[in-house]
């Protein structure tokens, strides 16, 4: 397989179900506090995304939970300062985590092509 280094621009072509992410009723009117409900996701995404969102200094609170173990759903709660809103913060968190993944990928590629590692023949 080709080591694919292309930028993931094809993401715009992904088919995502309309109800993949929903906003749980009860958000504040100024949109600074919100709970997002994400379908078919678990700790793989939840924990890393929660951390990434928390890195944003405009975020007062961010936490995630899986409300019930037999429902494939993750809830992410975001509370921000008044200078921004939860949706923008979520978007920024996703951007940052995506960039971190891209970074891991390009660093890995770099090291792999450098070839400074041992190989055993069996």
């Amino acid at each position, binding site marked *: 397989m080709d080591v694919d280094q292309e930028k993931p621009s094809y*993401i715009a072509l992904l088919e995502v179900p309309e109800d993949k992410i929903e906003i749980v009723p009860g958000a504040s009117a100024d949109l600074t506090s919100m709970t997002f409900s994400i379908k078919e996701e678990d700790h*793989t995404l939840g924990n890393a995304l929660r951390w990434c969102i928390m890195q*944003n200094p405009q975020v007062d609170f961010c936490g995630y939970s899986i409300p019930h173990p037999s429902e494939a759903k993750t809830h992410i709660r975001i509370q921000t300062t008044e200078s921004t809103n939860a949706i923008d913060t979520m978007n920024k968190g*996703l951007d940052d985590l995506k960039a971190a993944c891209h*970074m891991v990928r390009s660093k890995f590629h770099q090291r792999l092509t450098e070839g400074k590692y041992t*190989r055993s023949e069996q």
Partner: protein
Amino acid sequence: MAGGHVNDPNGPRIRIRHLDENTIDFVLSNTHLSVANSLRRTMIAEVPTMAIDLVEFHDNTSMLVDEFLAHRLGMVPLTSHTVDEFKLTRDCTCTDYCKECSVEFNLHVKCTEEGTRTVYSSELISTNKDVVPVTEEGDGGKGIILLKLRKGQEINIHCIAKKGVAKEHAKWSPCAAVGFEYDPHNNLRHLDYWFEKSVKNEWPLSKNAEEEIENDPDAPFDFKAEPTTFYFNVETVGSLKPQNLVYMATRVLQEKLGGLQLALDEDQNPESNANMDDAEPWV
């Protein structure tokens, strides 16, 4: 933020220590535990591979019952470097299965001589030259023993392999094992070792301990310290090369996040949605 990492403009670092046919040993550093754990979890459960999912038994006079063999066949690793060319069955337009979402295998063996006839996974005849049972030099290129037949016994089956992820069934996992360690000296005290007389003697340090220094046991405990270096040892089942597994895992994660952004955009622009009656349904 330059480099994309939120804490550090230099971003995550990687050092590959060892690579061979089935394993890769690398160190991921300068990132958060949750990111390293996401990578680990993605490699185990969310990188797609091919595996036998349906088995039609035309004839089975062997010692093993149909469902036992079907389960066994599902576990056979298939080379999956072309997995991206396949669709998931649920996304495919076909009603049952087709060549865009599956690969077919046939196996027809009858034992006609005295003694035992051993049937190996390499005897499965594939309809796609890129998706075949994994074999190694160590097993003489024969693969895995599927069953054994005595004189007069016969097996005639048709298998359909599909694309899938290990979230659904572990047979689709490209990983045999993922070793994951951080803080080998237990400086952060995330572990509370059980011991009889001495922790040091009863819990030998891993080789990763050579890369870090142990904290002075008399120094005050730094309760704000966080792990930053993560030691991975990924062992594949042979369906994917270990380096490609890491690439695919990062890509799966990126797609997951990108997909979420698309869905979030749709939420924000209700014009593009079908239900326009409630513009701000969340308030």
